[in-house]
Structure formats: C-alpha cells, structure tokens
C-alpha cells in the first residue's frame, strides 16, 4: 500500500510512510505544483506525488537541484498556485539564496517548504538543524509532534501560509519521514491554481529601494505571525503541575512515553509544541503560569530553549530553565535519553531497562554499506585502482592523483579494496575541490569522481571554471542513468520525467564539449581492458597538457538493469565457478570484491557464487585470469547485454 492506493478514497484508514502522509496532506490541501531534488530523508514526498500527479492534474517534477526546485515552486506560489517543495536539510543550503528573499516578497498562495532533517546522520554528511534557518530568514517553522498528526498538520501548514501570505517551513526528521503510520483519510481538493500573473514589481523586484521597505514590513509581519501561532491548533497545554516539560516537535512523542514509563504523566504540565519558530509567546506565557521550573526536550540545537530563555528574561520571570544541559546536543531523540533527562529533572530514581546482553561478541563483524553486486562502479574502480597502482609502481606513490569524491553510491569507492577517495564534502564538491588542488598541489593531479545526477546538480559551473582558468583536472562522470543513492529517481540522463513522460536526454559528453573540454570520451566500464586504456590515456593527457579532460563511464545501475531484465520477462543469467579451473587466487572476491562471490570455505579458497546475491552482470567472468567463471546459459547473457548498456 502506498499513496497511490489511497487515491479515490476520501475516508477510512491507510498505512502510509510519514513522507506519503505529507504528500496526502498536500493533495487534501489542494496543491497544484510540487518540486524537489531527491535527498534522504525527504525523497518519498515528491516521489509519491509524482505517482498520482496525472490522476489528480497536479504538476510534479524532479528539478536538477534544490535551488531550481525552490524557485520553481516559489514562482508558482507567487502566481497563485498552491505549491510544495521538499528537500533534505543540506538541500536548503543550496536553496538558501531564494529562501531568504522569499520572506521579503511573501507569496500569494500557500507555499510549504518541507525540510527533512537527519539527526544522527543516518544518510547525511552533517547534522544541521534547519529550524535555525527559520529564525535567520524570518520564515515560520512547524513540526509534527506525533506521527499520526503528520497529514493534517501538513494541510494546516498550507492554510496558514495562505492566511499570512508567507512561506512556511514544515520541518521533519528521519523518524517522521521514514516511519509508517495509520492515517485517517479526508477528501482530496481540486488543485488550486490561478494560471495568471499580476505584475507587482515593488514586491517582486528586490532592488535596494524596494528591499528596504520590504525589510521593515517583514519585521512587523513577524510579530503578527508570532501572535497568530499562539492559537495554532496543533499546539496544546496538557496536564498540570508546578513543573513544565516542553516537548518540541517529535520529542513530544518521546516525552509522553517517558512520563508514562516513569509513572508521572499526571504530575507534570506538558507543552506540546508544533510551532517552534517563532515561539508563540502568548501560549508559552500561559504554559509558564505558576510554574517553578521548565525542561525543554528537543533534538539538536537549543532553538526552543534559547527563545524560551529570552522570553523568561524579557518578562522578568524567575523560573529555572533546563534543556541541553540535561538532554544533550548530539543525535536523534530516544526513549532512554528522554527518560534519563526527565528523571534527572524531576529528581527521581530511574533504572535503565535491562535486557539480555549489552555487549556484542567479537565474532560480530562490521557491515558497512557496499556497492551492490553488479554495480557499474565496481569494474570502474577496479580498473582505476589497477591503473593507478601501476603508475605508482612506475614513479612513486607520492604522485598518486588526489581523488576528489562526491556524494552518491559511488562514495563507497572510499572503502577497501579500492581505497580511492581523498575528499567528499558536499554535492559538486568533487569538481570544486579539484579546481583548488589543481593550483595548489604541484606533483599530483586531481581526479574528480562525480555521478550523473550530481554533475547536473552542481558539477557544471566548476567544470566551466576549470576550462576557463585552464586547470589540469580529470573528471570521471559515473553515469548510471539514474539518481541511485536516494532510491532511483529519474534525472536528465534517464530519458523520462518524474511523472513517466518521455524526456530529452541531456548528454553529459555534449555538455562537456559545449563547455570547452577538448578531451571527452565515453565507455562501458564492464569492458575492463578498454576502461584501463582510457583511464591511463586520460591521466597522461591531463598531466601533459595541463588542461581538463572529462570521461563518461556509462552503464546502468544494477538494480535498474535487474528490474528491466525482469520486466522484459527474462531471467537473470546465472554464473558458476568451475572448481576444476579455479586456482583460488581470490582476485574476484578480494580485489574485485563482489559481495556475491566468496571462498568455498575457510580452508578451500576456491571461489563460489551466491545465487541469492548475484545479479548476473558477468564482469567477474571477464576478470578471472584462468577463465573459471562461466554463465549457465550463454544465450541469455547475449539477450541481457544491451540492457546493461542502457
């Protein structure tokens, strides 16, 4: 069951992922436009909307990056279309420029920016708290406090945005976005759109003379927004007592269970706080009446705590305020963490739940994520490591290129046995950093390793920069024709749009040539020999010519290839290792490191292939030095070959 299965239903219950509940809330609110660039944990909002877009007559797109996504939805909202844009927390950094300006102009229809933050960094490079963007940019931030209210809260965000004619940030965290919950369905509204633009340059042209006036209005508007939020229906004061616990956002859900667990739910007053920025002062004042001390429970930064402390000072109240001192800054909320903080705050004894065993035995090996069996990046990295090792042997490891990595499945080239990546900072950072190493390191060239989606997202300006300023940079674009890391969304290399329409393929090699790169080549990494040849040639070209070169390693993501092969009614070719021929050298499982191949046992080092994991890509058959790996059905191999090439 997913969002699509709920279309046509206007009542009853459905189990939806938090992100789908947001999507359902948006269509019940009557959105007309939804845009996003994928990013865990935000992706399924627009992904699920894309599946129902044609049925409901709403416009949904995967934009090339968050800035474009933001501007597209924002423009639509200024033209009277109810709009949503969604992104992961770091995506809002990319869209921060228009974000700040959007507060000055405001909007004409409801405009909700979903910021999906990732406490604990389950799938992210940092743990930034985007509630701070709200304070900084003058945009209200609203958070679900329970999973079951996610859908209706989303709807309310649109109504509120429309009412105040201002963008609203709906902030979720991983555990909201990626938790399935029972949702009560309501009626779906017709998409709200005007289809007309009314000229208003004093509002929408931010030249200094206009911006100064708008800035003064914004500060005033902020006060009235704060007042309105005191009666926001998803905030509540619950229970009574001389102490107050503020449960901000999803921390509220943990607080409720912690109190229940500690048996003190009826002894404290709780402020269920959904509107975290700006702090609804009237409501908080009421919650503080007759209270001696307060505990603010929130994840990450003390956003509510700081605002609450400032209110206490402003009002000259003498109330003890606790928060980060008892709750801590790091990582996501947990039941034990909430219980510990509450128990300490209340001065009660608390025994941690005791389980069966707390320490893991030493035989438990780590299980880091890895490239899938059949992943097109494995043969590329295998060849790259081999070519570079050979060059290192010829002239010394101190001249090994600097591998500037980027963000995507291909970041896993960091791990053994490839051990490539030297840097991975943020999206597009591979090419950006390569620009810097090219002029600051004398005896090593930078190699930027970047995926197709990331190249479109943020790779083009630094490529132009490298050409314009003539930098010795080798760019390897890993074109698997999909945005894989985030769960396989189409992008300009795929040939279809978010809603399944056929789309023009924007070829990376064409972009490179148009940007002025003189050395451009495209190859299939499964052809190991050709790959090694091109890699060596390209490295030598950059070192000698001191100019940028760009090569495109093009082969389908294994999961996509398998899906396509199955949908054609074909089976995955099975491969086997001939034990008579295998010499147990371990090249396939140690150097190539395919997770589907392993030694037969601890003693017998001959290889064997696990049918539960093998995707039938066949690359191992071509790297085996003694030809011991063979397909069961060579005809089938021929049939699937072209699928892998895309």
């Amino acid at each position, binding site marked *: 069951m997913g969002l699509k299965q709920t279309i046509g239903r206007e009542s009853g219950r459905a*189990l939806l*992922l938090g992100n789908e509940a947001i999507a359902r809330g948006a269509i019940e609110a009557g959105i007309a436009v939804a845009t996003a660039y994928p990013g*865990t*944990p935000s*992706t399924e909002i627009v992904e699920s909307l894309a599946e129902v877009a044609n049925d409901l007559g709403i416009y949904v797109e995967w934009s090339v990056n968050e800035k474009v996504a933001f501007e597209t939805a924002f423009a639509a909202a200024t033209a009277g279309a109810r709009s949503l844009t969604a992104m992961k927390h770091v995506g809002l950094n990319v869209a921060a420029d228009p974000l700040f300006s959007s507060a000055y102009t405001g909007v004409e229809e409801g405009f909700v920016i979903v910021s999906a933050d990732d406490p604990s960094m*389950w*799938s992210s490079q940092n743990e930034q708290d985007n509630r701070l963007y709200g304070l900084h940019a003058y945009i209200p931030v609203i958070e679900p406090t*329970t*999973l*079951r209210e996610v859908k209706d809260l989303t709807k309310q965000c649109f109504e509120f945005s429309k009412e105040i004619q201002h963008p609203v940030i709906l902030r979720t965290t991983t*555990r*909201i976005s990626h*938790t*399935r*919950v*029972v949702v009560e369905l309501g009626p779906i509204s017709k998409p709200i759109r005007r289809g007309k633009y009314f000229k208003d340059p004093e509002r929408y042209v931010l030249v200094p003379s206009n911006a100064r006036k708008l800035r003064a209005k914004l500060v005033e508007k902020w006060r009235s927004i704060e007042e309105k939020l005191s009666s926001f229906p998803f905030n509540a004061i619950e229970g009574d007592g001389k102490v107050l616990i503020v449960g901000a956002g999803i921390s*509220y859900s*943990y607080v*409720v*269970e912690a109190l229940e667990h500690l048996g003190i739910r009826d002894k404290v007053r709780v402020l269920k706080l959904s509107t975290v920025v700006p702090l609804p002062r009237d409501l908080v004042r009421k919650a503080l009446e007759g209270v001696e001390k307060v505990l603010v429970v929130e994840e990450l930064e003390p956003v509510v705590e700081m605002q609450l402390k400032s209110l206490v000072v402003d009002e000259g109240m003498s109330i003890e305020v606790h928060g980060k001192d008892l709750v801590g800054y790091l990582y*996501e909320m947990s*039941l*034990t*963490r909430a219980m510990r903080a509450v128990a300490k705050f209340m001065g009660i004894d608390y025994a*941690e*739940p*005791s*389980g*069966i*065993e*707390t320490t*893991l035995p030493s*035989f*438990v*090996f*780590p*299980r*880091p*994520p*890895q490239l*899938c069996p059949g992943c097109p990046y494995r043969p590329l990295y295998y060849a790259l490591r081999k070519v570079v090792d050979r060059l290192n042997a010829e002239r010394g490891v101190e001249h090994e290129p600097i591998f500037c990595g980027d963000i995507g*499945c291909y970041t896993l080239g960091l791990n*053994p*046995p490839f051990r490539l990546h030297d840097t991975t900072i943020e999206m597009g950072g591979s090419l950006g950093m390569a620009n810097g190493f090219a002029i600051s390191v004398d005896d090593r060239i930078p190699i930027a390793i970047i995926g197709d989606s990331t190249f479109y997202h943020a790779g083009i300006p630094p490529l132009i920069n490298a050409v314009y300023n003539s930098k010795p940079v080798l760019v390897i674009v890993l074109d698997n024709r999909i945005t894989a*890391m*985030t*769960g396989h969304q189409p992008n300009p290399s795929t040939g279809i749009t978010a809603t399944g329409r056929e789309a023009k393929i924007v070829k990376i090699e064409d972009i490179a040539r148009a940007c002025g790169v003189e050395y451009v080549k495209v190859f299939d990494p499964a052809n190991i020999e050709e790959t090694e040849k091109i890699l060596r040639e390209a490295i030598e070209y950059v070192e000698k010519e001191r100019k940028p070169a760009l090569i495109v390693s093009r082969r389908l993501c294994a999961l996509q290839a398998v899906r396509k092969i199955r949908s054609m009614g074909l089976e995955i070719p099975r491969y086997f290792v001939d034990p008579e021929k295998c010499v147990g050298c*371990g090249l396939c*499982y*140690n150097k190539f*490191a*395919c*997770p589907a*191949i*392993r*030694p037969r046992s*601890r003693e017998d080092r001959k290889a064997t292939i696990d*049918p*539960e*994991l093998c995707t039938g890509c066949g690359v191992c058959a071509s790297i085996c030095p003694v030809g011991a790996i063979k397909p069961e059905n060579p005809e089938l191999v021929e049939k699937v070959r072209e699928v892998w090439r895309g």
Partner: protein
Amino acid sequence: MKFVNVVITGVGGQGLLTMARLLAEAAMARGFETLAAETHGMAQRGGSVVVFLRIGEEIYAPTFSSGMAHLVVSTELIEAVRSVPYLRSNGVLATNTKVIYPAIPGIYGSVDENQVLEWLRARIPNLYTVPASNVAESLGNPRATNMVMLGVASVILERWIDTEYLAKEVSKIGKGRIAEINRQAYERGREIAESLRVVKL
C-alpha cells in the same frame, strides 16, 4: 500502555522493508495503531538494516531503546546477534541461520556458525533458528528468504495481526512464478513456526 515492540533486521536488499510494511498493515487490519520506523539510504546498499515495528493501542515514539524489544526477527545470523541488545530479558529471537559476509577482504569464513548458535542458545531461552535461505532456495527462489521469516513472525505475532489479511497480501507480491514461490515460502515459514511451538506474544 499495551503494545509490542519488534525489531526486524537483516542485510540491506533482503526485503526487510516489505516484511515490516506487511506486518504493520496486518496490525492495522486488526484495528491496532502501529508505527514502523524504517532504514533508508546508505544502509540499503548491503549494510545492516533495522526496522522498529510497534503495535498497540496507543503508541507515540517511533523508536525504542535497548532492552525494550519483545521480539527480534532476523533474515541473517550475524544481524540477529547484533540486535540482541534490543531484547528485553524475556524477549524472543527468530532468525535465519545463514551468514552473509560483507565483501571486505579477509572476513569471509571468519565466523563459526556453531559458535554463533551456541552464543545465542546460552542467552536466549526463546530462540528459534530457521534455515530460511535453504527453504527459499529449495522452493526455487533464494530471494524469498524474507517471506519464510515473515511466515515465522506471523505466528509469533498472531495476537497482534490479522493473519488472513497478511496471507492475502503476501500472495499479491510479484507476478506469476515469483508470486507463487513467495506464497509457498510464507506458508513454509508458518509451518516451521508451528512445528517449533513458538511463543505467541
């Protein structure tokens, strides 16, 4: 508060999210509230996946902490061990007996499966070990391992889910031969659980 806390674990790519979603739907069909907190992103590329499934009359928090799980279900042996700290003192553990090694050179074959089983037996009175991968393979699709374990879990969680609903939904996964194998794998899992006289939570 009346609820059950379940950890569903295994290796990314084994179909754990499908298992968790089906169990949560079956819990909803039984009239309960349910939350299933999934692992997406990086970990799905062959890393450890942990899904927190909670079923009950009133639940708030999407996750729970160590020592709070009534049940751990695992599709892989080492992941079962990794999740033991989640178990309450009288918790139940049901696991596939297969070890899947990560492609880190040198780790292959480093584990003695009997030693692992001994470690588990010494600690967990309610332990059920199931050769789910073998069962799935013998049915003709090694990727149906998750369905065998789903069958086992469905018996342990009988009081919390609508099993008729679940059986119907299982038969809708995949098409043709794949769907038929999934259904058989699920049924075999249930038979195994019944023959082991598993605890019913």
